């Protein structure tokens, strides 16, 4: 489940960075989705996300199926709420790419990338792999993924992706 935990945490991180979603919004989503028995408060949420092995502290907690499912549903619910923003961001990215410009040039994407990098460095165990370039690429990829997860059946896609990851051999 290692990769699943990492992926869930990163997807939420991307959403946080783009839309400024904090734990309040996540808890609110949990309440809306009636998941408060699993994600009851900020501490519980933090613990679930802290399970990621990429985090500082190596993520000790195991994530069970219900917890993973809750995170999936919360993430997609929030992504769905931010669909307009995500669409704009992706459209922007496409345009910039076609024009050959760096994404940082725009406010939306530039802020997103900066926030993502900073938060990532703050929370995650830093290794040599995580240069700012890597993080930018990671952030953009997550952005696109989030865009697809924001669809009504996005949770199905995210869940399928997570499972696919856990089945695929590393590397």
């Amino acid at each position: 489940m290692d990769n699943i935990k990492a992926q869930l945490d990163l997807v939420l991180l991307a959403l946080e960075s783009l839309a400024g979603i904090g734990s309040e919004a996540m808890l609110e989503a949990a309440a809306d989705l009636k998941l408060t028995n699993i994600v009851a408060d900020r501490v519980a949420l933090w613990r679930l996300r802290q399970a990621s092995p990429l985090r500082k502290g190596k993520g000790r907690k195991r994530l069970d199926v219900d917890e993973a499912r809750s995170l999936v549903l919360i993430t997609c619910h929030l992504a769905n709420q931010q669909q307009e923003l995500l669409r704009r961001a992706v459209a922007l990215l496409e345009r910039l790419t076609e024009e050959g410009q760096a994404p940082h040039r725009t406010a939306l994407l530039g802020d997103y990338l900066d926030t993502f990098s900073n938060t990532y460095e703050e929370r995650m165990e830093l290794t040599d792999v995580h240069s700012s370039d890597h993080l930018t690429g990671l952030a953009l990829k997550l952005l696109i993924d989030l865009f697809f997860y924001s669809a009504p059946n996005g949770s199905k896609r995210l869940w399928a992706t997570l499972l696919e990851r856990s089945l695929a051999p590393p590397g």
Partner: protein
Amino acid sequence: MAVAVFRRYTPPTCTLELRGERSPLSVWSDRPIVKQVQFILSIDGPQRPVEQRITIKGGRTQLDHLHTVVNSYVQQTLNLSASQFQTRLLHPPNANSRSLSEVGEQSPNAVNTAFEPTPTAGQGLAAPGRIRDMRWSRSRSSSLQPSMALIPKGLLKHELQLGELAPHSADASTILNTTELFDLVHALESYKEEVDSIPELNPAQDRSVMPWMKGAAVAVLAVGVTATLVNVLELTPKASFESADSQLSNQATEQELAQQPTTLELPPVASGAPPSADSSLSTVESEVAEAEEGKSKLIAEADDEASSEVDQTSEKASQEGEENTGEIAQSQLGNRNQPNRNQQNGQRRNQGNSNGNANNEVALLPAAPGQLPAPISGSSATRSQASAPGNSTLNRATAPGSVARSSAPSPSLASPGASATNPIDQSGDSALAESRLEAAELPSELTSIPPIPSIESGIDPLADAGDIAVAQRQASVSNDAPQSARAGRTTTSGESIASPDPKLPQIYSDNAETQRTQVQTYFESEWQPPEALNQALQFRLIFNEDGSLQQAIPLGESARSYRSDVNLPASGTPFVSPFSGNDTPPMRLFLGANGQVRVFLESLD
């Protein structure tokens, strides 16, 4: 029905228009059912140059193909990203591979090469080899039509090869950007979710579909038949058990009953119906058979009584007659636990016994409660009901505490019941009531080898019972062993505490009763509660086979503290009479703060 445009999906970058005939079947479905679906897909977002806007048309099959292709492509894309995450983050990037790390460099050139769509397939952000190696989604259309496909062009561009859907112009494919892809997927998904479409009759299609459908139909049929058979088979064994039991219950010999192991399974199965009463009776009968021997005649009588109707109303409680009271009690409890019924049956058997010898009640009781998780309240209610005829002393409230009180008069009933030559009815009543009480209370007392707090709660009610118990004990002393054992048990039953333990320990033979009584007698004379004591003390007494005390284990803080105040006999010194058989049951000793002494047999389980 006329062809009508029934759905139009208009996300920002494309338009999906659906036409078809609405089937009359839509009435019975929550989604419209459409046949002969035709679709028109226009990729005409504002950002798309006019000359690149395309429109494709097709039927249901092509639409489904398109949906499948696009859907699986998106999923694969997402998965691929995840793999790349995995590659990059969890393993050092390979310098030679065109991984994202290289691409992510901020130099404009790098960005250009990374994000720029390339005409050739496979190049792009992702490792080309990986993409090429992956089987991108292709529609599984028949070989007659060129297949549709989506091929990634980097992370943000996707080439949609239209295959059969290609308009007659030269464009057989178009490049979608991610937004358009998203909208296309969204539109197709919405269509799939909202609309059911009837497959068109297509000879080619039928050929491919029919064998599959035949196989599916056969499978469904097989499953249905199997399920039916299972249901039928489940019912028939029950019926056979019950009929067998009713036959057995009419037989006189307990050995025959004991030989019916299946009856033991019945209590969980049967419930609340007359046949189940028979089965439960049979179960109890088999237990009784195991518990004692040589009482076949009595059992036969009990069987006859018990096999009479179960569903008596409470009105009958007012009527005199052993059968009625027994049945009422039985029926009342019949709605509760099966074991309760067993208990009642055990009572009834005792009732039958009382015709001859009330002593048998006690002997039978060990067997009956063996299964009982009897809630005390249930027993109390029963007791109060059953005691109506002529046994006013038996009328008790249904509170658990009343159990003690209700047990109190039982000795008095027992005595007259045992000794008097009352009409059978009355003695049967009392015996029945008493035995019922005993059996009811026995489980509660035994299971509630209770924690100290519950004993404390029971101490007060026990106060009255204690006196009567003493009287009864005296009365019983004059009787032979079984009777005294019964009386002893009745007194101990007076200590039934509020919370019955669901798991009732097995009571074994009467052999230990003698010793238990001896222990009780001993401590009654020895026990002097210290002034400071305000709780009952509990000890577990372990015996040796020769009757000497092996060990006295204090249970609880109070017991440990006041152990020295209890004149426990020294280990190894003769204490009680030797145990016959192999059982040296441990006993639970309760010493009340008011001087009461109670001794229970513990299970060896």
